[in-house]
């Protein structure tokens, strides 16, 4: 399964965590799930940190893209 969205990743992490908590899990399955889980954690963290609290002022819209400049009004 190819995880594309943040929500999908979260849902999958939920499943993996539950499975890892069960007693009957075999080592090979656990290792695979652990690896997959850590990849998802990284994916989610990255997604969340992609945006960086920037505040921009829109100066125009061109070809579907926002043109912007630094929003000058200072925040102390």
């Amino acid at each position, binding site marked *: 399964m190819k995880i594309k969205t943040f929500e999908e990743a979260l849902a999958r992490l939920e499943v993996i*965590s539950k499975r890892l908590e069960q007693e009957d899990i075999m080592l090979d399955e656990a290792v695979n799930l*652990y690896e997959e889980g*850590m990849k998802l954690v990284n994916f989610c963290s990255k997604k*969340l940190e992609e945006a*960086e609290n920037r*505040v921009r*002022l829109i100066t125009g819209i061109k070809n579907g893209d926002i043109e912007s400049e630094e*929003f000058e009004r200072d*925040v102390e």
Partner: protein
Amino acid sequence: MSVKIYSVTQITKLIKDILEANFYGIWVEGEVSSLRYSSTGHLYFSLVDERASLGVIVYKNRLKNIRFELKNGMKVVIFGSLSLYLKGGEYRIVAEHIRLSGAGKKFYDLEKLKQEFKQKGYFDRKRAVPPYPQKVVVVTSPTGAAVQDIINIIKRRGAGVDIYIYPVSVQGETAKESILKAFREINEIDKTDLVVLARGGGSNEDLWIFNDPDIAKGFFDVKFPTISAIGHETDFTLCDFVADLRAETPSAAAELITKSKVEMLENIKKFKRILGLNMQRILNTSKRQLTLYSKMRFSLRIDGFIGNRILYLDNLEQKINSSVLNKIASKNSQIQKHFNIIIRNSPSTKLKTIKHKTELFQYKIEGKIKAILENGKKSLNIYSYKLTSLNPENILKRGYTMTTDIQGKPLKSVNEAKKNSYIITRFFDGSIKSTLKK
């Protein structure tokens, strides 16, 4: 020549009929003057403008329809019907509703607009607002309090949201066109997670533009999910109703945008911890099992093999312990290789099978030996009994005798006895030697 002469009553009744039939359910605007309550509790005042005056009566049971305190000099709009009082010969308007002038009409119009919008379904289309928006366009005044509130909260929370301010003017003559243009242009953007329409607190008049049907429709037509954040908690505008989500204030909107994100970061950390802890536990269990199996020492070769695997597991455990969880995930191919080897050879599985087989074998062997011993014991008893009962001595005791030749060889038949030879007859307590005569 006859002239029609009316009585006072007749003419006044005629005027009354004409007045009341023609001026029923009308709106009249003017200024309040000569306000007074009668002893019976009805309210009387005059509605005046520059050149005329109109008497007003509000009956006691209608006073509750007035939602504000009437004062002389106030400009109001009255809804009611004209009525002529025969005895006094005066006409008045009997008021059903009184509203503040301007606002009165505006509220009335707004109510009608709300009905219309609701009927068209503009209030009921609520799209899902993304819980973790990354890119948010805020339509607001770049110099207003709203933008400041939003920026402050988002900066403080550090939640990783990029804010794009679409600058508009939110009051004055240019406001409407400026906001409509913003909506049109935003619809040309390929991707944004959210559009927020924000305006800080202000008077009713200040916020009134957000009741404009064109602006509300324009906001409704924005192709991205929308949040309205206009004025204070108590202010509801048409834009609030068509938005996918209404925030009580611009600050509340900023909280909404960042809240789930802050929680999510926590959540992700929690998942990471759970993964690590469980993996650690599973590794520990596996290691314990391997150690246990190695103690059984089926063979030195397997023992050494397990020892190696334990080293691998120790290795991995150390890496997890030193909390390079991330590294493990990213640089996992190395570890994965080790694991693949372990799993492919799967000593635990093999050992389990071997152990099981051995146990089975042991059980079978034990069972067999036991059975053999049991049988042996039984046979021995029988033999011993037989041996006992077959002992010739015992037979002799019962009154039998045994005859042998001189060498002690038993004579089983008369034919074996030869004439003139010696025979020996054995009793249980002795024997007699005799000579055969015939």
